[in-house]
């Protein structure tokens, strides 16, 4: 179906779900010693809920697909920039998103990759399946993420033009997909310094994602003129740049209860100087702590 009612997430944070394929087989960790096997009821409530949740959520789910290694490297880098070593969201980050999803294009429609190596324009059909985006995750920004195969030496700088068009499947008239709307823009950058190029396509995809569109089908034509654009002729300059099909990055604001809402914490911190000191700061010398914080703030300002 074109768009389907998104499922509202369960109370349990999704990442706590145990991937049980076989609903009757208890997760190895949850298995009790032989003598107590029948005592399933003895399991701590949380573990019981997880295995129940795991069974319900993963009923007949296909084995988990391994993500693209480049995409994984990018997201690990994003994680390091956003969270401390202990995994706590960095306080100095003022972004409003609390969720970032990275989708790699579905494989079946990357048939045109064979032609990429011929050195002509880099155009590819991309189909992104956005089923994992929940109803409470609202789009803030969407980016096409290109990574360059840095093993291939490429002279720099480069001027790239990108032509993007969304393919609409008009099921009623059985006509082949027509490009409903498209946009073109160019970018100029130094290859040496970049391994990624992020192309902001928010305004382009916003109408689709806002209407709970589950599948986005787009054609992307990405051509780079290498070296000094003025001296190169069109054909000679536009050599193939070793590009990998782009991933789609969605910056989202999850308004569900389980998600961390940065705005609350910012408002809370702004109110704290005036906030009456809690009587229950048994160990911390509340006044001392407040002084320490204001000293640190003034030092930083200086």
């Amino acid at each position, binding site marked *: 179906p074109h768009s389907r009612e998104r499922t509202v997430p369960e109370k349990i944070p999704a990442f706590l779900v145990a991937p049980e394929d076989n609903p009757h087989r208890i997760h190895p960790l949850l298995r009790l010693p032989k003598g107590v096997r029948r005592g399933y009821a003895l399991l701590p409530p949380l573990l019981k809920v997880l295995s129940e949740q795991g069974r319900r959520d993963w009923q007949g789910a296909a084995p988990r697909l391994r993500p693209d290694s480049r995409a994984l490297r990018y997201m690990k880098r994003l994680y390091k920039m956003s969270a401390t070593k202990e995994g706590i969201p960095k306080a100095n980050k003022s972004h409003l998103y609390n969720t970032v999803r990275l989708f790699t294009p579905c494989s079946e429609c990357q048939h045109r990759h064979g032609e990429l190596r011929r050195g002509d324009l880099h155009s590819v059909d991309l189909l992104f399946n956005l089923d*994992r985006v929940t109803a409470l995750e609202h789009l803030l920004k969407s980016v096409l993420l290109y990574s360059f195969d840095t093993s291939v030496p490429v002279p720099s700088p480069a001027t790239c033009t990108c032509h993007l068009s969304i393919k609409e499947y008009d099921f009623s008239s059985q006509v082949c997909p027509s490009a409903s709307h498209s946009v073109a823009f160019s970018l100029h950058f130094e290859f040496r310094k970049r391994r990624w190029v992020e192309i902001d396509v928010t305004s382009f995809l916003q109408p689709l994602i806002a209407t709970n569109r589950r599948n986005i089908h787009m054609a992307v034509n990405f051509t780079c003129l290498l070296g000094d654009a003025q001296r190169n002729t069109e054909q000679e300059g536009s050599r193939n740049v070793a590009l990998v099909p782009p991933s789609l990055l969605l910056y989202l604001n999850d308004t569900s209860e389980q998600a961390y809402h940065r705005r609350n914490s910012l408002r809370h911190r702004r109110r704290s100087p005036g906030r009456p000191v809690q009587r229950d700061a048994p160990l911390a010398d509340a006044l001392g702590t407040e002084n320490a914080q204001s000293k640190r703030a003034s030092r930083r300002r200086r």
Partner: protein
Amino acid sequence: EQGLQDAPAAAAPRNLSDYFKQFLFPQNECELHNFRLSFSQLQWDKWIIAPHRYSPQYCKGDCPRAAGHRYGSPVHTMVQNIIYEKLDASVPRPSCVPAAYSPLSVLTIEPDGSIVYKEYEDMIATKCTCR
């Protein structure tokens, strides 16, 4: 006072504040305890990429009678303590529970191979109270 005249002279307490402390603040007082787990122990590292380790912490200990002063507990907590001591011992004493939390950022692989970074609320206990 009647009891005191007959009883043998108890050893004078070193100082009165230590003497009275035993009544106000129990030995095993309600406080935050460290607990560090790694997701591989739970075999969740198959889909949780980061963090590798996580310290949820936990609250444990007895609640003093004057919970209001030390833990900012509501009046109800003291009333429940009085009910337990004076009226009905089947009514449980106030429990030592978390009062504040920190969020946690998690990087996971979804079943369809996509990757999600999400910040979850209330994942790490940072303060305890009696309720």
